[in-house]
């Protein structure tokens, strides 16, 4: 839905509060259902596999070992999923409006992370980084990252995509890949010249120890803490806020109506007095700003950034967007979270369940993507793809 009209009863001149709320929070409910659903499905499958394989290992109780880390794996998957989801939002927005995959989006994410790191380094150099309250620092860094990435996205659109708007579809796609490489190597150059270094540290105030949600008893009498890092929590909260904000913007404002109108039929929207170029630039601004915010939050969480961090998350976020049904905003969130769960489960469990024959961390992508292909075979238009109206 989102970028299409069918979610909203057509003439949205006077809308009731109830309709607005439904437009904004309805998709959130959908995301929530998928989060819980995929967590349950994957947990059940994993435990089932562990149960079936329990005879193969004599030295550990597989089911017990699986269950002890299960809550932590779900938390990890959630955090990872929200990362993909926030990046996927940018892909899906642009696709919805232009039917074009902005492959440079992963790099826009990376540039956002770097601008946050540069800000952190500047604050650290002047010695005030530790004096700042962590939340204030996050807020400032996110705003800086959103500004830089948003501006960058609009600039890229103006320079590299707009002149090609009427060219065959593959042309802007190639242009996007070119921009992506340009940004990677350009940032590599900038990072080396400015002294940030290729592997730049992201200095932050101290967020304190991770939150211990529970203590899970393990087989040998120890307890294993269930941990949620404060920074991961910030990430999840921020991503949820972004989704709500975006849904409000697209579904409940005049601007959103204009965006949806451009998405549905560009010439007609133009005839209705909508400035199409402006709306497309705005879409890039929003997508870029979301990517930048995700980059900063990711950088804060992992603590180091380098010019290549955007590439793989970008590719996976694109996959997530397709998985959820490209062009569909809650779909991007759902796709991201499902992919995040898949990866976390495979990475954490494959090695345990195969008795160390396969290293989970190195085969996570293969298995996660194989499952993904399966899902797409049965649901070619994506998990929430049905809601995408065909432009006929």
């Amino acid at each position, binding site marked *: 839905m989102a970028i299409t009209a069918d979610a909203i009863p057509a003439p949205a001149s006077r809308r009731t509060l109830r309709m607005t709320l439904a437009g904004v929070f309805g998709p959130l409910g959908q995301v929530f259902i998928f989060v819980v659903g995929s967590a349950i499905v994957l947990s059940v499958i994993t435990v089932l596999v562990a149960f079936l394989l329990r005879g193969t290992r004599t030295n550990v109780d597989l089911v017990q*070992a699986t269950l*002890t*880390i299960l809550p*932590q*794996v779900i938390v*990890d998957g959630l955090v*990872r999923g929200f*990362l993909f989801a926030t990046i996927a939002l940018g892909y899906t927005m642009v696709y919805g409006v232009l*039917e074009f*995959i902005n*492959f440079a989006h992963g790099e826009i994410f990376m540039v956002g992370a770097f601008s946050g790191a540069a800000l952190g380094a500047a604050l650290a150099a002047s010695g005030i980084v530790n004096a700042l309250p962590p939340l204030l620092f996050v807020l400032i860094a996110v705003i800086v990252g959103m500004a830089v990435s948003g501006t960058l996205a609009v600039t890229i659109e103006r320079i590299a995509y707009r002149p090609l708007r009427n060219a065959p*579809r*593959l042309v802007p*796609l*190639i242009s996007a*890949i070119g921009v*992506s*490489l340009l940004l990677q*190597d350009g940032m*590599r150059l900038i990072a*080396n010249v400015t002294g940030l*270094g*290729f*592997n730049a*540290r992201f200095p932050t105030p101290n967020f304190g*120890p*991770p939150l211990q949600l529970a203590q899970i008893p*393990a087989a040998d009498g*120890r307890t*294993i*803490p269930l*941990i949620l*890092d404060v920074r991961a929590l910030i990430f999840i909260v921020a991503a949820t806020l972004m989704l709500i904000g975006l849904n409000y913007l697209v579904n409940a404002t005049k601007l959103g109506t204009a965006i949806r109108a451009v998405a549905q039929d560009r010439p007609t929207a133009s005839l209705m007095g909508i400035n199409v170029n402006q709306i497309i630039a705005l879409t890039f601004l929003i997508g870029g700003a979301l990517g930048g915010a995700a980059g900063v939050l*990711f950088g804060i*969480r*992992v*603590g*180091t*950034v*380098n010019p*290549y*961090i955007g*590439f793989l998350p970008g*590719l996976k976020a*694109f*996959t997530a967007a397709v998985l959820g049904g490209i062009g569909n905003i809650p779909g991007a969130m759902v796709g991201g979270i499902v992919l995040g769960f898949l*990866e*976390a489960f495979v*990475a*954490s469990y494959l*090695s*345990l369940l195969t008795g160390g024959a396969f*290293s*989970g*961390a*190195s085969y996570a992508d293969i298995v996660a993507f194989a499952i993904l292909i399966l899902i797409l075979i049965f649901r*070619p238009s994506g998990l929430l793809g049905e809601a995408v109206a*065909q*432009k*006929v």
Partner: protein
Amino acid sequence: MRYQASKLLLTTFLIGALAACAPAAPVAPTAAPAAPTAAPEPTAAPTAAPAEPTAAPAEPTATTAPAAPAMSGKIKIATQSPLSGPQAALGTGIRNGADLGLQDMGKMLTDMGFEVELAPFDDQAKPEVGAANAKNIASDPDILCIVGHLNSGVALASLPTYKDNSLAMVSPANTNPKITESGYQNAFRVVGRDDVQGAVGEEFARTEMKIKSVYIIHDKTDYGQGVAEFFRQQAEKNGIQVLGFEGTEEKSNFESILTPIQAANPDLIYFGGIYDQAGPLFRQARDRGITAKFLGPDGLDSSELLKLAGDAVKGMYYTSVAAPVSQFPDAAKFAEDYKAKFNEDAPPFSAQAYDAMGICIRAIAQAAEKAGGKPSREQVVQAIRDAGEYKGITGAYTFNAKGDPVTSTYFVLQVSDKDGEPGEVWNANAVVKKLDIPAP
């Protein structure tokens, strides 16, 4: 319409697949232009320095010794190491160390009438880039010897080309046994080997750190996985419980790897790989409250590790085949010169690169004398084999039949817990143990 949409999806997938190759693809095109430009630009400076002074003595020797007119022409010695990208800190040190070596010892060749020049290549720590550079190096007839690489995986990708062209490679840093065990007659190194290094690490972990269980992570490269495998073999043999053995190419987000580690609760996390991955891994482990000790091989030997990991690595141990330059009494002048010329402390492996350069120069000089002119590449390889002991600033090196030094020194070092600039703190790292072990 639906049909068209699916066509579009298919094309985007194809493009996606194309883009997926991009970590490999983009570097090749950028590497190609980068290498040639890298070559002439930095060489301009180093050659200008040694060439000018030689211009003066060259003439008198030309007039006093007209008997050797063949001793002329240009000789280039190449370096291959990552000069850009995540591992540039060590790779640049190798280039700079070799540069200083040529500046100090190139006289041996310029006195004979040759022009000498350094040809630095950037292998970006990527096997495919190293192999492409190797072809460029092979096609330049003036290049007679190579100082490099940093990464064993890159060296192994380049060695077939060197071998086909009988080019001598003297490595200041490659520790994977395969370098000298694969029958390359032209491969030499001035450092130890990972089969020994892994065992040294394991013994130290068992006897000094008193650990009972270990979780091993590696970076899936020839070097990192290699040394991790040797550590595992020894650990299993000597009764250390190996709780896990995982490879990953992940560079920033280690969450899903750390969850099983937290549950397994090992005494030690052994990381086989390079500092750029180890830094975030170690710090995220500590952030999560994992209290296991850390240990790793010489790939961690860079102050960048401290910059990336911060307090998480203070006091940790690592094994190395190259100690801080301050550990070598003969290298004091080198350390001063390095700081004066490049404005930073000499990083690990730079002094080894200096010695590797010395070995190259001596061999070329001996081969030239024997040949009575500019030697062939085969003659240089033979000269390195025949030359006998080389007394360098990091030790004395005699090569065995495989190309390993007969005896190598292995170190166990501890990261200093001082505060300050990472570069300075790193140089204060203490040598805990020093072992001279003959090559297997």
